[in-house]
């Protein structure tokens, strides 16, 4: 254990995803050695992101305004919604340039081990959108791992009584991999070959 401020910093860093106790220590001591202005820039970047970035009130993507740029873009097809787990998945799909519809970000996947059930995700909001917006097709693009598949299955069960076509991105994605890591070509192909869910 280190004293006060240093230990606080290590603890905070250790809470970040993918940062273990050893890395947290290494980063903390690196930060101790950098120049004042560099440290200030890092602190400012974190504060600014917290002050100006929020979640889109419609699709839960990251946004600088009440609604994100994609939701505000009149050229995006309102009849198609692509359902993803995280905002970074929106980015991955945007990079393929294959998709012209809109998004809905769930904020994760169903995972009882982690205490995440349907109530912890933006599923109620999704159902509301399906009721209020002219949605004709839902493309479920949750990750191709067991949690993503279970979430897709749950959504298709929930939507059986709604008048909307539910499709799932075709696999060809790396098994157990995050959508984020799928290369753009595979992801583009997955969009073209999506399959019907449920029924």
């Amino acid at each position, binding site marked *: 254990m280190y004293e006060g401020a240093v230990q606080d910093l290590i603890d905070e860093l250790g809470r970040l995803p993918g940062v273990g106790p050893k890395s947290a220590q290494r980063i903390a001591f690196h930060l101790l050695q950098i120049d004042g202005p560099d440290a200030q820039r890092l602190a400012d970047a974190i504060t600014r992101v917290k002050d100006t970035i929020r979640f889109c009130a419609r699709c839960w993507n990251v946004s600088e305004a009440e609604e994100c740029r994609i939701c505000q873009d009149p050229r995006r097809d309102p009849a198609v919604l692509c359902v993803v787990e995280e905002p970074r998945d929106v980015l991955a799909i945007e990079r393929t340039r294959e998709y012209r519809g809109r998004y809905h970000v769930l904020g994760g996947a169903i995972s009882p081990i982690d205490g995440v059930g349907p109530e912890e995700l933006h599923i109620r909001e999704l159902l509301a959108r399906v009721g209020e917006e002219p949605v004709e097709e839902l493309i479920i693009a949750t990750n191709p*791992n*067991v949690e993503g598949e*279970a979430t897709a299955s*749950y959504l298709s*069960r929930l939507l059986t009584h709604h008048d909307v076509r539910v499709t799932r991105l075709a696999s060809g994605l790396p098994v157990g991999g995050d959508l984020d890591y799928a290369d753009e070509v595979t992801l583009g192909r997955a969009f073209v070959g999506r399959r019907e869910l449920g029924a």
Partner: protein
Amino acid sequence: MQLRHLELVDVRSYDRASLDLPVGATVLVGPNAQGKTNLLEAVQRVATGGSHRVAGDGPLVRVGEEVGLIRCELETDVGRRRRVEVEIGTGRRTRTRVDGQDVRRAAEAIGVLRAVLFAPEDLTIVRGDPGDRRRFLDELLSQRRPAFAAARADYDRALRQRNQLLKRSRHLSGSASEAAAVTIAAWTEQLVTLGSQLLAARIAAVRTLAGPVDRCYRDLADRPETVGVRYRSSAGQVVDELLEEADQGPVPAVAPLAQALAGAYQEVAGEERARGVTLVGPHRDEVELTIGALPAKGYASHGEAWSLALALKLATFDVLAEVGDRPVVLLDDVFAELDTTRRDRLAAACERFDQVLVTAAVEADVPLSGHRIDVRLVDGVTRLEPRTRELPS
């Protein structure tokens, strides 16, 4: 396939060892606890991704060291030279390279080197719990096709998720209970999808094994009794009936298995909700072994149990060789457990393998001609001393 060269750095009792291996039989000779098994274990680790003795890589690293290295150079059946290097660590993640390239997932390196190991621990396949027999099948299937290992890992994960959910929603009632039922159904679907794939693969493996096991057993045993290998699904009669009907092809269709599994889940749904645990699926299945008319577990004598376990392992050679390279065979301390007749029979059975590595404390126990290597512990470190080739007799 032939393992041409093996290098060990800080693995178990080895600080640094380098060994050229010929085709045919190689017998590692030395008293117990000198490091003979450690060598086979290292080869097994590269072939299957795990040790047959311990879970995790930690114990494989030499005491006092942080990293160990196992390097295998091999030649495939079509003459292609390949290299697999596995860096094992006590704490950090393993690093695996195939043909000089880092692999993204360690599972990608499984099966590049193909090996079948028989060790005294394998007696549990006959004598142990159903879990031991399932593990035997799953390890075989993973080596046969790496995609199986991925499906198996996904199934385990989905099972843990569903069990957790069942446990948490055990005391719910009314609308909360109905809402939970929809989420449970989503997980059931995962178990059905993944489980039916596992089922089909396991049944196919059992069907392919049955003939060779029976043949290998007759080759080894005193009395030529018929050996039976049957897959018993926990999904009950439905699946078993399906199996009887569809007994023509080697690989059963996945769709009817999925249907049967889904039906079984419906049947036990109430009990699962009450008990808070998943009651059906490949994780509860059994591989039934019989010698003559009797179940092997509980009825087989010591010699019979050994012969059957050995026959099962020798038969996996055929299942693996069916798709891809013929595996290297590793026999750890086997000959000492057998009587003279069975030793001769096993030695005769070994002739059809391209390469066999055998360990023995007493050289005279192994009636195999071939290369000999003396294994001795010197100052706490294993030394390998290949003998000059014996003249053919």
